[in-house]
């Protein structure tokens, strides 16, 4: 036998209690893992280097207000602007309204598009084929895989915002750094079919010369149209995406609140369990001391037992949660960044260990400094 086997056997002394504690830790750490990966995906990831160099200009009032297309040439004159394309949300549906069939569709300028999205790798022949075909579209690999689409395949989108049902041919499949589940097609297609859509893009996507130019370009764009009929709001691609997320409410406070509450509640439950488990063994502590066990060893035995319980329980929550983040992340779009990383995994396991440590340290310390004579007299 070793001391660690002794710890393990002690932890399994009251199997039901240990299992329930581990289950509690599992549930809370599973939740915490999900929350942390959402937090990371939304707030910590800066995206690719190119994404950090991209800004989005939209109408200052709301996303449902359009911008005049002549803004594009005005924006081009600002120093630090490398390329600019109109980018409009089509918002159609594919096949039916099921949420699983939802994906983003934008219409844009296919010629300049590669300059604004240089990190989206696409076969040059496919790109040229898309640029030549006004009814052509490109989709990212995740979307193509989901629906089993091949280059040359025809698909039909159903109308929603714009009164047209585009009949598109997939001309290419692009590879973004993170699954985006997005389709791009031509502005001309929509403008020819819908007269009121002419010259009215939803947003402009701008590629800046460097990440440092982003602030200055954003400021210059907004200053330029401050007194125009359609004032603008320009922000980084990341901030733009966050704007969408924040429409759901104060996600940050929500995540912090849930995460904190869950960890705190688990801490209390675990602390209570450990206090009970250690109190029950008061006499045993006295016996161990008589056998020659020192204070520190006894402290380490109890704290180790609690940490073992919490880490194993935690893993039973962290692992399924990791699987869930993989599924969520594969949905692409906003969710692409919601991913587990080795760093997050380590943090989650660390939190589990921390819960074990904190919940056991006080009763363990008390047990370790208990006088032997008092321990021997303890009944129970």
């Amino acid at each position, binding site marked *: *036998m070793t*001391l660690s086997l002794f710890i393990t*056997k002690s932890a399994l002394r009251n199997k039901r209690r240990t299992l329930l504690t581990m289950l509690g830790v599992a549930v809370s750490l599973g939740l915490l893992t999900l929350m942390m990966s959402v937090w990371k995906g939304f707030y910590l990831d800066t995206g690719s280097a190119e994404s950090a160099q991209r800004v989005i200009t939209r109408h200052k009032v709301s996303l449902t207000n359009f911008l005049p297309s002549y803004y594009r040439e005005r924006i081009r004159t600002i120093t630090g602007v490398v390329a600019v394309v109109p980018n409009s949300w089509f918002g159609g549906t594919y096949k039916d309204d099921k949420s699983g069939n939802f994906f983003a569709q934008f219409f844009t300028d296919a010629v300049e598009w590669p300059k604004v999205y240089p990190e989206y790798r696409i076969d040059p022949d496919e790109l040229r084929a898309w640029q030549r075909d006004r009814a052509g579209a490109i989709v990212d690999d995740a979307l193509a895989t989901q629906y089993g689409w091949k280059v040359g395949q025809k698909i039909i989108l159903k109308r929603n915002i714009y009164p047209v049902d585009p009949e598109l041919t997939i001309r290419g499949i692009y590879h973004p750094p993170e699954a985006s589940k997005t389709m791009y097609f031509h502005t001309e297609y929509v403008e020819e079919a819908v007269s009121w859509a002419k010259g009215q893009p939803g947003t402009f996507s701008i590629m800046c010369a460097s990440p440092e130019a982003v602030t200055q370009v954003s400021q210059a764009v907004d200053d330029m149209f401050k007194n125009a009929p359609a004032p603008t709001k320009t922000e980084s691609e990341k901030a733009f995406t966050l704007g969408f997320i924040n429409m759901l409410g104060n996600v940050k406070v929500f995540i912090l609140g849930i995460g904190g509450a869950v960890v705190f509640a688990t801490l209390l439950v675990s602390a209570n369990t450990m206090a009970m488990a250690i109190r029950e063994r008061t006499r045993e502590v006295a016996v161990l001391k008589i056998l020659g066990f020192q204070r520190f060893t006894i402290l380490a035995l109890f704290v180790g037992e609690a940490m073992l319980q919490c880490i194993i329980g935690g893993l039973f929550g962290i692992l399924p949660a990791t699987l869930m983040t993989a599924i969520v992340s594969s949905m692409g779009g906003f969710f692409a960044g919601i991913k587990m990383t080795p760093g997050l995994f380590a943090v989650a396991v660390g939190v589990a260990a921390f819960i074990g440590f904190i919940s056991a340290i006080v009763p363990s310390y008390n047990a370790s400094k208990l006088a032997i004579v008092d321990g021997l007299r303890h009944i129970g």
Partner: protein
Amino acid sequence: MSETRNIVEVRDVSKVYKRDAFEVTVLEHVTLDILSGEFVALMGPSGSGKTTLLNMIAAIDHPTSGEMRVNGSNVFALDDAEAARWRNENIGYIFQTFNLIPVLTAFENVELPLLLTRLSASERKEHVMTALSMVGLGDRVHHLPKQLSGGQEQRVAIARALVTDPNLLLADEPTGDLDTKSATDVLEILKRLNEESGKTVIMVTHDPHAASYAHVTRHLEKGELLPL
């Protein structure tokens, strides 16, 4: 020279508990020598201070005044950690209620004190098996305490007490919870350990039959040691 043959020297030891205005004197100026290799029975009515005296010899409890040398050490001067190490090497303690760890097998219970030594796993195993066969339990090694009878549990506890090969075995009413047959087994084992292995045995007991196994019987009465 005669001093070195005393394994226990208790000098003028008193123990007083103060509770509010009351003072309870548990031991009063106890002076006692125990020769190395002796088998001593300690008798006396309930509350007379037998356990208290035994605990002091084991460096578990401290006196209000007085001095004591056990196996050459001034035990009252040891700090917590030193006392723990000293007990591990010098003392085997046997309880009335056995006090085995319920989740550990007989083998593991006996091995427990050896985890604090530098012995390798195979050396530990050898010591454990030797100790268990000395108490006649070589075939019960993988049983949990609850799968053993009271007499067997106490024999495991004795094996645990002697596995580190201490000079001194302290037993606090070791037969108090046992039937006559098991009690006799335990007393025979203690006698054998005393005679064959030269262990000094100090045994607290209420039972005159148990005391008859000892060479010397000392009586405590209200905290005072009666003269021989």
